[in-house]
């Protein structure tokens, strides 16, 4: 079972991201379970959503406490929330930013985790460019596909287009595709650096 935790703020599509991710996995014939952190958080408040992906039926209803991947939609949360709680050393981290980890002041992370599992993606910029609104969730899913290979970019594309109809779906899918490319390149760069 692969468990994902997505951090963001109310209004940034955090819950939708988990839902679309589960749909993408479902589209590929896998079992998936997406759910929000339950609460009554308002726009702007820190929120979390979860997604589990597995090849067999998912029965558990406990929250994701030991994620395999953490997606951070909003870097301003870094000093406010324990974003990496429960993340295994080989866990993945995808951060929505155009800056480096050092610039963000979280260079220490490299020491705790596999550095090739820690990548950034300028998802907000991509969203602004393609969709015209700063909603990074779709683009980040493209990055997630590239980073974790848990789902294909094709499945992400399907899930996005199912959630957002017409032009909006198309533009979000384009943002995801570009994010996918960027992260794939980052990954290659990282791999190269590692090797």
């Amino acid at each position: 079972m692969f468990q994902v935790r997505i951090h963001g703020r109310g209004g940034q599509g955090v819950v939708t991201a988990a839902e679309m991710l589960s749909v993408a996995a479902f589209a590929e014939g896998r079992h998936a379970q997406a759910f929000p952190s339950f609460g009554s958080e308002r726009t702007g408040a820190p929120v979390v959503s979860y997604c589990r992906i597995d090849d067999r039926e998912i029965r558990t209803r406990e929250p994701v406490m030991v994620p395999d991947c953490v997606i951070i939609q909003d870097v301003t949360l870094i000093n406010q929330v324990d974003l990496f709680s429960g993340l295994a050393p080989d866990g993945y981290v995808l951060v929505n930013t155009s800056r480096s980890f050092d610039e963000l002041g979280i260079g220490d992370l490299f020491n705790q985790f596999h550095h090739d599992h820690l990548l950034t993606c300028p998802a907000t910029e991509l969203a602004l460019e393609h969709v015209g609104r700063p909603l990074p969730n779709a683009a980040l899913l493209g990055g997630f596909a590239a980073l974790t290979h848990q789902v294909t970019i094709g499945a992400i594309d399907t899930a996005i287009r199912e959630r957002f109809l017409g032009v909006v779906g198309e533009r979000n899918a384009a943002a995801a595709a570009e994010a996918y490319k960027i992260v794939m390149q980052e990954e290659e760069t990282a791999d190269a650096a590692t090797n």
Partner: protein
Amino acid sequence: MLRQIEGSRAVAETVALCRPEVVCAYPISPQTHIIEAVGVMVKSGELAPCEFINVESEFAAMSVAIGASAAGARAYTATSSQGLLFMMEAVYNAAGLGLPIVMTLANRAIGAPINIWNDHSDAMAVRDAGWIQLFAETNQEAADLHVQAFRLAEELSVPVMVCMDGFILTHAVEGVDMLDQSTVDAFLPPYEPRQVLDPDSPVSIGAMVGPEAFEEVRYLAHLRQLDALDRIPVIAAAFEEATGRRSGGLLSTYRTDDAETIVVALGSVLGTIKDAVDIRREAGERIGVVGITSFRPFPFQAVRDVLCGARQVVVIEKAFSIGFGGVLATDLSLALHGTDCTLRSVVAGLGGRSITRLALEDLFATAARGQLEALTFLDLDHGVVERERERMMATRRSGPSAENILRDLKAPRRVGAKEKS
């Protein structure tokens, strides 16, 4: 068709397939997504003919459903928690009048302190109201139970409440095999009321009944619920025949055949329990699970049959009767009366507290050792409780407990800092 879909949406779409004619809605978390979705379907014309009524309270919601049902329409509503309590009087009334209303209860705790998260206090608060109460383990079952609920309700002229865990199910997106219209139509005949408000054939519905007949009226209601114990498996079987899917029934079992310890629970926590049980099984423990689907009517015989071979029964439930203990455990203790089975009551997950697999594994290990107490509160922070009790002893005006505890939970850091300095 199998779809990756939010639980609320699955229920809403399934309810729509049942062709409800009057739907009343008053929003309360976590029921909102269900009635929102039904509302959209009615407004768009996708669900027609149907009257969607935005009422001003849950009390009105159930009341509108009562009027609609008495006038011969298939009526549906959904609520949670405080909403259920606010409509309580009407909940009893609907049952007393024998109106086959179907209601989704997105289970949630009851305040104060106000708490929007899941537990079963709401369902337990109305267990004596005369409604049939069915608990769903998964969103698939939640959806399926609604179709069966309408049929059961209308066959017996008894209202049915489908309970599904708030947020945990209602807000979870997972795979649900959705029924199609022709399947539901074939399974669920149009509503044929037993009594109806008809100007051409007038009757007075809702008479005042005195001591001379009230007991008989109540006893008849009881008999109808006992009838439901027969009808529920029959309807589940018919459903399986129509859909190829096993859903509903009085109860479900998991690895109980040779089990010495059987865990009994209601609703979605059964999934996590099954995961924990699998792990305990791998450790060699003979443990199984029984999920109660029909909490009212309570299937005494079926429960007894399945549990009587076990040495120990551990009831895990998300509600308790303050000053007494577990509610489901009480029912089970009656069902097990005269057997050698030991009953252990565990109260867990109140107000949305996570019931984790690890905690359950630990609990089952304790049970296996025979060390589980008669009544246990899972993951209870005894330190917090003790400190609040001390504060209450110290001063009469110790302030509200909820706020004190929240302050207390943040306190260790301060205490730690103090100790450091």
